[in-house]
C-alpha cells in the first residue's frame, strides 16, 4: 500500500468514527462528551473558515467571533420578535401576510415576560385558546443570520480590504468590540449581558429512523453540526482547489504580482472574506439554537484567540488539519479544566490552561510555522518523495562536476 493514501484513509476512518460514535458510546458522561464534540465541531467550522481567510488568502481578520455573533443574534432576534398569527392582534406592529398576519413584537427587553407590556400576550388573552400563534421556523432564522453575516462581511470588506493587511486586523478587532458594546448597551432589544434565549433546533423533538428524540437530546444537533462541518470543509476544499483558490493564494504570496497578472485582487479578497464570514455566521446561528442562549460574552477576545490558536496549532495553511486540530484542542481544553493543588498553592487550571495555550501558540508560530498537524501529514504525503529525490541525486553524483549545471 502506498504511503500517500495514509491521510485520506485517516480521513475516512475519522469520519466513520464520528458517524458511529454516538451509537457506540454508552458511558454515563454521554451527554457531556457529546456536548464537547458538538462544541468541537463548531470551533472546527470557525477555525476552518478562518484558516481559509488567514492561511490561504493572507487576510487576518480578528472579527470572526463578531460575524458568528451577527449570525447568532440575527436568528435570535428574528425568532424572538417575529411571529405568525391567523388573526390581527390590534396591539402589535403587524402586516398582512398571506392568510395570516406577521407580528413584530415591541422591543421592551427584560420586562417582556410581564403580561401587561407584551402585546402578543395581551392579544392571546383576548383570543383565548382558539388561535394558534406560530413561531418562525428555525431554518429561516439560520438562513437570515448567514445572509446577514455576508452583508456585514461585504460592507467591512469593501471598506478595509483595499488597504494593507494590518488595517483589516485592526478594523475587525474594533468591529467585534463595538458589536459587543452595542449588544450590551441596547438592553431593550437584546437584553444586554443577560443574553437572549432561542428556541432549540428541534423545539418539538424530531423522529429519526422511527426513533423519537426530545429537544434536549444531543444526537440530532450532533449530526447537524457534524454535517455542517463536513459541508463547510467540502465547500472550502472545493474553493481551495479551484481557480478561485489559486487566485487567492497568488494574492497572498504577492499582491502586486497577482494584480499585474490580471487578478482583481480587491474583488477576490472581498469574496473570500464574505464567504468565510457567512460560514462563521451560519455556524454561530446553528450553535446558538443548540445552546439555547446567546450573550455578548461569546464575543470576548478570548474566543477569537482560541480560534487563532486552534488554527495555528492545527496548521494555518491546511483547512482539514486546522479543523481536526480544533476538535483535538477543544478536547484538550476540557480535559485541562480540573484545578489541582501543589502544596498550599491552588492552581486554577481554568485560567492556567489558557496561559499554556498561548505559550503553545507562540512556540508553534516561532518554531513550527506550519502547525503541529501539517508536518505529520506532510511526512506521510511527501516522505517517500524526499527519499526518491535523495536517491536520484545520489545516482547523479558522479556527473555533478562544476560547470555542468549550466548544461542541465
Amino acid at each position, binding site marked *: 500500500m502506498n504511503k500517500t493514501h495514509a491521510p485520506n484513509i485517516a480521513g475516512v476512518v475519522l469520519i466513520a468514527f464520528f458517524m458511529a460514535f454516538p451509537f457506540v458510546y454508552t458511558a454515563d458522561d454521554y451527554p457531556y462528551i457529546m456536548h464537547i464534540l458538538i462544541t468541537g465541531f463548531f470551533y472546527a467550522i470557525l477555525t476552518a473558515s478562518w484558516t481559509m481567510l*488567514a492561511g490561504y488568502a*493572507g487576510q*487576518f481578520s*480578528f472579527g470572526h467571533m463578531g460575524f458568528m455573533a451577527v449570525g447568532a443574534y440575527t436568528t435570535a432576534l428574528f425568532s424572538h420578535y417575529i411571529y405568525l398569527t391567523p388573526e390581527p392582534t390590534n396591539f402589535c406592529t403587524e402586516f398582512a401576510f398571506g392568510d395570516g398576519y406577521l407580528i413584530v413584537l415591541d422591543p421592551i427587553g427584560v420586562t417582556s415576560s410581564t403580561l401587561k407590556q407584551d402585546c402578543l400576550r395581551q392579544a392571546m388573552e383576548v383570543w383565548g385558546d382558539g388561535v394558534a400563534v406560530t413561531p418562525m421556523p428555525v431554518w429561516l432564522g439560520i438562513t437570515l443570520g448567514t445572509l446577514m453575516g455576508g452583508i456585514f462581511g461585504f460592507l467591512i470588506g469593501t*471598506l*478595509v480590504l483595499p*488597504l*494593507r*493587511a*494590518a*488595517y483589516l*486586523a*485592526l*478594523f475587525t*478587532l*474594533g*468591529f467585534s*468590540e*463595538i458589536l459587543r*458594546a*452595542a449588544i*450590551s*448597551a*441596547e438592553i431593550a432589544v437584546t437584553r444586554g449581558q443577560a443574553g437572549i434565549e432561542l428556541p432549540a433546533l428541534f423545539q418539538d423533538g424530531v423522529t429519526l429512523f422511527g426513533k423519537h428524540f426530545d429537544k434536549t437530546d444531543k444526537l440530532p444537533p450532533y449530526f447537524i453540526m457534524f454535517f455542517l462541518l463536513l459541508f463547510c470543509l467540502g465547500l472550502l476544499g472545493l474553493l481551495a482547489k479551484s481557480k478561485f483558490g489559486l487566485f487567492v493564494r497568488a494574492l*497572498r504570496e504577492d*499582491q*502586486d504580482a497577482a494584480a499585474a497578472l490580471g487578478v482583481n485582487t480587491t474583488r477576490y479578497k472581498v469574496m473570500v472574506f464574505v464567504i468565510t464570514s457567512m460560514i462563521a455566521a451560519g455556524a454561530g446561528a446553528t450553535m446558538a439554537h443548540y445552546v439555547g442562549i446567546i450573550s455578548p460574552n461569546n464575543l*470576548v*477576545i*478570548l474566543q477569537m*484567540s482560541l480560534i*487563532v*490558536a486552534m488554527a*495555528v496549532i492545527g496548521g494555518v495553511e491546511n483547512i482539514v488539519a486546522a479543523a481536526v486540530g480544533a476538535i483535538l484542542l477543544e478536547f484538550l481544553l476540557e480535559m485541562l479544566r480540573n484545578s489541582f493543588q501543589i502544596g498550599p498553592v491552588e492552581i*486554577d487550571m481554568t*485560567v*492556567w490552561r*489558557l*496561559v499554556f*495555550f*498561548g*505559550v503553545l*501558540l*507562540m512556540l508553534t*508560530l*516561532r518554531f513550527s*510555522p506550519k502547525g503541529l498537524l501539517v508536518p505529520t501529514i506532510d511526512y506521510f504525503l511527501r516522505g517517500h518523495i524526499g527519499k526518491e529525490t535523495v536517491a536520484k541525486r545520489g545516482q547523479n553524483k558522479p556527473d555533478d562536476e562544476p560547470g555542468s549545471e549550466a548544461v542541465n
Partner: protein
Amino acid sequence: MEFSGIFWGVIGWMIFWGVTGSIVSRRVYLHKDLDTSNTGLVGSMLGAATGPVGLAFLWMKTPEITTRMMLFPSLATVAVFMLTFSISDPGNLCVTNGSFVASQISNGLIIGIIYGFMALGLTLIFSILGVVSFAHGEFYMIGGMITYFFTTVWFPELGPIVGILAACISTFILGAVFERVFLTPMYTGKVDRPVEYGILITFGLAFTLQYFIQATVGANPVKAKRFFDFPKVRLPSAEDPWLIKTSRGNMELFDTISISNPRFTAAVMCILVFLALMYFLRRTWTGKALRAVSLDRDAAAIAGINPNKMNMLAFALGSMIAALAGAMLVQAFSWLPQVGAIPAMRSFVIVVLGGLGSIPGAFLGGVIVGLVEAAGTGCIPNAQKAASYIPAYGMIVLTLTLLLRPTGLLGRKYASGTHGKV
C-alpha cells in the same frame, strides 16, 4: 432631542452630498488628467459643508488640491454638524451650559494627551519594525499592575516614582526579550510573510500575557492610591477663588473647569516624557539612528547602523511607553487583566488617524480622539448609552479616516523600509 427630524435630515443631506462629492470629484479630476490622491476627501468635505454650491465650483475650476483646501472644508463640515446639533437640540447641556462645554473640552484634551502618548509607542514600533503590535494593550495593563503592586501592596513607603520606574524597566526588558526570541525570524527571512507573522505572534503574546496576569493576580479589580496630592492653593485670594482653586484630589480653573488630580498628573508626566523622548530621538546618536532606520533600512545599514538592534530598541521602547501610560492611569481607573483591550483599540484608531508611523500625527490624533470621546459622552442625550458606546466613537473616527484619507492626517506616503510594504 427636540427636533430630531431636522438633525437627521441635515445629516442625510450632508452624507448625500459628501458621497456624491467624493465619487464625482474623483471622476472629474481623472477626466482632466489631474492628481486624484486627495479628491475624495476634498470632494466629500466640500459637499458635506456647502452642498452643491461648493461642489459646482470645485468641478468647474478643478483647482490643484492644497493642504488648505483639505483643512477648511473639513473644519466647515464639523462646524455645520455642531450648528445642526445645537439647533435641533436646544435644551442639551452641551448647547446651553458654557462651563460644562469648557470642562468637557479640557478633560478631552487631557485624556487625549495620554491617549496620544500611548499611541506614540505603537507608532514607534510600526515605523521601525513594520509590525502593528497587538500586545500594546497588555503592556499598558502590565505597567499599571506593576505600579499598583509597588506603590500600594509591596512598598507603599517608597513613593510612586519607584513603582513607575519598576514598571518601565520590567516592560522594557520584557519587550526586548520578546523581540529577540520571537520577532527576529521576521528580518532574517525565516518566515515567508513577515507582516502576517508579526500580527499573529503579537496577538499570541497579548493572549498569553493577559491570562498569565489573570492567573497570578486574579480577576478582581484593583486601584492604586493617588500618587501625590495637590497643595492647597487659591489664587488670586482665598476669598475670591476665580482663577485657580485646588483641593487634594481636584483642581478648579476659573471656577468652571474641574480637573481631577490623577488625570492631571498623568498628562503632565506624559508631556514630560514626550519631551524627553523627542530630545532622545532628535539629539542623541541612538535616536537619530532609530529615525534613520524608520526612513530607510538599507541606507541606515550602509551608514553603519545595525537595523536589527534598532528593532529591539524600538519594540522595547514602544512597549515601555504603553506601560508608562498604564502606570500613570492606574491611579485614575480601576485595573483588571482585561483593561488593555479598549486603550489598545483606541491606540490603533489614533495611529491610523494620525498616519501610521508619524509621531506628531499620533499626538494630534490622540487629542482629536480625546475630544471626540468627550463630545460623545457629554452630548449624546441618553447618558447611560453614551458611556457604553465609548469604544464606538473611536471606530467612527477610524471608519471616516479609512474612507476619506487612508494615509492618515500626517501619514508618510512611504513608510518603513522592508516590512511596511503591502
